[in-house]
């Protein structure tokens, strides 16, 4: 088992209604110098979260105790830019297990899936509804049901189905990763490689 399995998650959520949140914001490059996957959550959204003297920026959502939870809700085109998996690690290490947006950048989405953070893509209308409802009542929960591919806002206030390919879904439900799969077909890979010159 490569990471925690994911089944149903019910949690309050942290809203970040900004578009095009790039991975340099999620974790700036100067915090990528570690050689182990440890402690990245401390620097999640570092420059939006802290002033240059390391004091917290009070207007940033992670410094607002009204909002908490295991689900991060971001604006459209979340995770664009650099391929750094550290961005997904920072989100995980901070305590999030799911990111909701109306559109994800490709590499970021993959990185999340590969470490057991579920990216849930919803319609722009549903995303706006989530932002409105949780801003009005920060105690509202979201329920993300991977098996049924369904996300529900509040006590069934509204819900939507989301897409995920069945292979990745199976992996997440069981906590398997791609290396587990690839290792099992190594003979086939070696046969392929022997016909593929360098």
């Amino acid at each position, binding site marked *: 088992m490569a990471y925690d399995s994911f089944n149903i998650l019910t949690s309050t959520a942290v809203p970040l209604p900004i578009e095009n949140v*790039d991975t340099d914001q999620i974790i700036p490059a100067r915090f990528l110098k570690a050689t182990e996957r440890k402690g990245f959550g401390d620097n999640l959204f570092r420059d939006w979260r802290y002033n240059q003297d390391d004091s917290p920026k009070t207007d940033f959502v992670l410094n607002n105790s009204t909002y908490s939870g295991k689900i991060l809700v971001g604006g459209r085109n979340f995770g664009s830019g650099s391929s750094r998996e550290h961005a997904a690690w920072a989100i995980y290490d901070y305590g999030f297990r799911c990111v909701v947006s109306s559109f994800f950048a490709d590499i970021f989405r993959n990185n999340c899936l590969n470490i057991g953070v579920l990216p849930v893509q919803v319609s722009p209308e549903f995303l706006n509804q989530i932002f409105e409802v949780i801003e009005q009542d920060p105690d509202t929960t979201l329920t993300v049901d991977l098996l049924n591919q369904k996300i529900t806002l509040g006590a069934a206030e509204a819900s939507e189905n989301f897409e995920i390919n069945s292979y990745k879904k199976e992996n997440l439900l069981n906590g398997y990763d791609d290396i587990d799969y690839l290792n099992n077909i190594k003979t086939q890979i070696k046969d392929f490689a022997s016909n593929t010159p360098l």
Partner: protein
Amino acid sequence: MKKTLFDKVWDSHVVKSIDQGPDVLFIDRHMVHEVTSPVAFLGLKNRKLPVLYPERTFATADHNTPTINQHLPVADPLSRNQLKALEENANEHGISYWGLGHQKNGIVHVVGPEYGITQPGATIVCGDSHTSTHGAFGAIAFGIGTSEVEMVLATQCIMQPKPKKMRITMNGSLNKGVTPKDVALFIISKLTTSGATGYFVEYAGEVFEDLSMEGRMTVCNLSIEMGARGGMIAPDKKTFDYIKDREFTPKGSDWTKAMKYWKTLHTDEGAAFDKEFTYDGAEIDPMITFGTNPGMGMSITKAIPSASDIEGGKTTYEKSLEYMGYKEGEHMVGKPIDYVFIGSCTNGRIEDFRAFASIVKGHKRAKNVTAWLVPGSHKVLNAIKDEGLLDVFEAAEFKLREPGCSACLAMNDDKIPAGKYAVSTSNRNFEGRQGPGSRTLLASPLVAAAAAITGKITDPRTLI
């Protein structure tokens, strides 16, 4: 069945297709650098797995390296430790390692093509989003995360669904002062930073055919900035001439055999794309960005658009302009700047330094400008010296640094100070990308040179 260039290369590398799931894609060549690889090597250690094909992986140090005094020990202990980890991992697993000070050292996407690691029809990955650069040679090349780096080390494969296909056709010819960087910034300004997400792009038409290999690399490099996994250009005589006789390209009868295959690498007449865009090269001006993502670019002659004319989030747009200290309706030309950076995997090749030299020759660096000239590799550095460009730079009061990623992502000491404006030939103008609080204006080497000698944003066509 009629196939696109992308189909031909992708399909020939599928080891296995999973129903309703990803393809298992075989990777011909893998490049690693110090920042995104240590956790992958650690993963192998924890799983007690060897590197399956070490001869298919190449390691270089670039992201975290200093660009002055490279002969001295690296001062920052964290950076030093990361570089040491890469060296140890490469040695332990029998991977070629071109570390700091090695004559082949340089930015991973600059040295790959220089030594012929990059070849047409190959699948190439690296834990870096600008791996798309190598698509200039008709390769499928794209950036991956660290989990995938581990997969490639352990099994030489990754698992991804086949992307959709997009073709961007540009005919006509480019005007004076318009470079490949402007072509890319123009396309991104039209498509936005998410316009090609989920797609692999093929660039076709006269404009791309006319570009040099360096120019094609600049265009393919920036594919990721419109969300695409990668971009590619069909190989032609220019491609073959560029790669012939390089260290890692086939020789003798292997070359003849490879050429036979490479010549089949083009999109068949009538093959289908999921999306197509067509532009006229003649409508492009020198470009500059004014906001905090690469899609926020425009002709250098224009005024910053107002939020009401922009599609999408007004709040995000206004936040971006506030960060930059700019207002809607302002013109870019004439605005003062503080720093100029020429370099990176986008514009750190010899052609870029030739372009920079063509403008600064006979002028002096503006007194208010700090300029960092950072070649993409030792090969580029040597060419700058051999071609006499260094003399031009020194006469104009510019200093040349040593190779590396440098201020493109400011992991080393090359950081633009908070609030300062940098005209940069790199690829991202995100908030704080070039240092906390830095303000980046992405542009071509010509625009950067014009800014460096005038101290303000200047249309380079007035100096040509």
